[in-house]
């Protein structure tokens, strides 16, 4: 019974195994990235960036159809261009970074959807917007795995300046010049993960596997290290459970993964040990000291 529910779908069907490998790899990299986005108060920046990579992917699509490397390369380039330009505009004008990102991602989304609608079919558009987690080919799996590996190694390398820039930017400036480069490297990792997520879950849901586990993890840990591990754990659990949910109920698989992550988030808000609502309502008797 348990075998039928939990294991059989993956044992019997190769596309399920591929999908599982894809979402697990994706969740391992995206969760920790999400934690840092949240702590840097950039939770919505991931969303904006996800839309910003669309025109790049669309131009890749225009040039060579549903080709992995053209679309991923286009997405990466577009993501970097938007991240850097938004950063530059924020530093050289009165506009804050989130405001200039908001302007850029709306323009990008419009450009991307226009290109794909005019050049391709509605199926292509759905593919781009919602991804195809059940049809991951070898190259895409490899791309996701490489991106996740690069993400984890990269985060380890820039961990100290990244943490310190969130908690005490003044002190970081006084001891090191690593803050700026670390921020740029971090934004590059965000783009990398969105490009991965884009193939599996589509541009609209790619951010889900990044942010939902991260904000849920906030309710379970007081320490950033623990939070990073919990986020990766919640992400992989959502991937596994979401694929099963989709298999057994016929729900579309990408949204199913995000729905499970959403359910875990809702549960965490209510029952999370660190500041969850239920614990706040019934805190128990106060301690002696």
């Amino acid at each position: 019974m348990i075998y039928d529910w939990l294991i059989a779908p993956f044992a019997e069907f190769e596309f399920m195994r591929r999908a599982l490998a894809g979402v697990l790899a994706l969740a391992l990299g995206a969760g920790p990235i999400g934690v840092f986005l949240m702590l840097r108060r950039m939770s919505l920046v991931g969303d904006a960036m996800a839309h910003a990579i669309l025109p790049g992917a669309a131009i890749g699509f225009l040039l060579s159809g549903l080709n992995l490397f053209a679309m991923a390369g286009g997405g990466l380039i577009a993501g970097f261009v938007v991240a850097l330009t938004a950063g530059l505009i924020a530093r050289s004008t009165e506009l804050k970074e989130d405001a200039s990102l908001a302007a850029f991602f709306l323009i990008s989304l419009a450009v991307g959807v226009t290109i794909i609608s005019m050049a391709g079919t509605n199926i292509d558009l759905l593919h781009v917007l919602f991804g195809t987690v059940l049809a991951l080919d070898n190259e895409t799996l490899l791309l996701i795995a490489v991106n996740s590996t690069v993400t984890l190694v990269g985060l380890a390398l820039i961990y100290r300046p990244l943490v310190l820039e969130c908690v005490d930017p003044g002190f970081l400036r006084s001891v090191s010049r690593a803050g700026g480069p670390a921020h740029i490297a971090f934004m590059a990792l965000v783009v990398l993960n969105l490009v991965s997520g884009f193939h599996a879950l589509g541009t609209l849901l790619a951010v889900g596997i990044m942010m939902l586990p991260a904000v849920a993890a906030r309710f379970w840990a007081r320490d950033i290290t623990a939070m990073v591990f919990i986020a990766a754990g919640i992400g992989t659990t959502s991937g596994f459970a979401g694929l099963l949910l989709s298999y057994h109920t016929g729900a579309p698989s990408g949204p199913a993964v995000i729905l499970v992550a959403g359910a875990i988030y809702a549960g965490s808000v209510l029952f999370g040990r660190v500041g969850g609502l239920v614990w706040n309502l019934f805190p128990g008797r106060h301690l002696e000291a």
Partner: protein
Amino acid sequence: MTAPLIFRNLTLGYDRHPAVHHLDGALEPGSLTAVVGPNGAGKSTLFKGMVGLLKPLAGGIERHEAQPQDIAYLPQIADIDRSFPINVYDLVSMGLWRSRGLFGGIGRKDHDAIERALGAVGLTGFERRPIGSLSGGQMQRMLFARLLLQDARLIILDEPFNAIDARTSADLLALVRGWHAENRTVIAALHDLDLVKTHFPSTLLLARVPVAWGETAEVLTAENITKARRMCEAFDEQAGACAVAA
């Protein structure tokens, strides 16, 4: 030993308006100096210039083994995000940045040093506490522990005893005295003149322009203090270009 910092006709300010005007002089090595002056006298501005956060409008600072990264600096309002999920131990250990950098491991000796620093500020047992749970005084003790680990030859403290109770200030003042005994150069902005007279051998009285700089007893005369109050007039929107030759 040469002075770590020498000010040469230094003018610092914002939007071309000077906040510290034509400061000359040298910070003696191993000295313990108080910077005294009314609010708006340019004390914080001077410190920002010393640690390189503010470029001089005119004149300059000559540095001898006191590059900005060699200075331990405690700002008046540390821009610490207190809601950030990090514990006291990890935050204090960031004081090792200069010796350990981006990638250096924290070894047995470093852990001992961190424990000693926490012990010296009276925060033993607080290692695993999230920084958001600290009181104002404990927060300041934690920042002093980080300063201890920075092990800098030049230490700058911007109003370190503000909004701190008597016992905490006494404990932290003992650390400052300790640094002085170890022949480190310490400069601190302070408002409590009695404390300055008892513990700080030299004083810089600032009122946008330096009023006096030297031995505390000679600087903190009633006459000088009145002069400082009078000179500390407001930032004038219509001010013309300064005529003193640079």
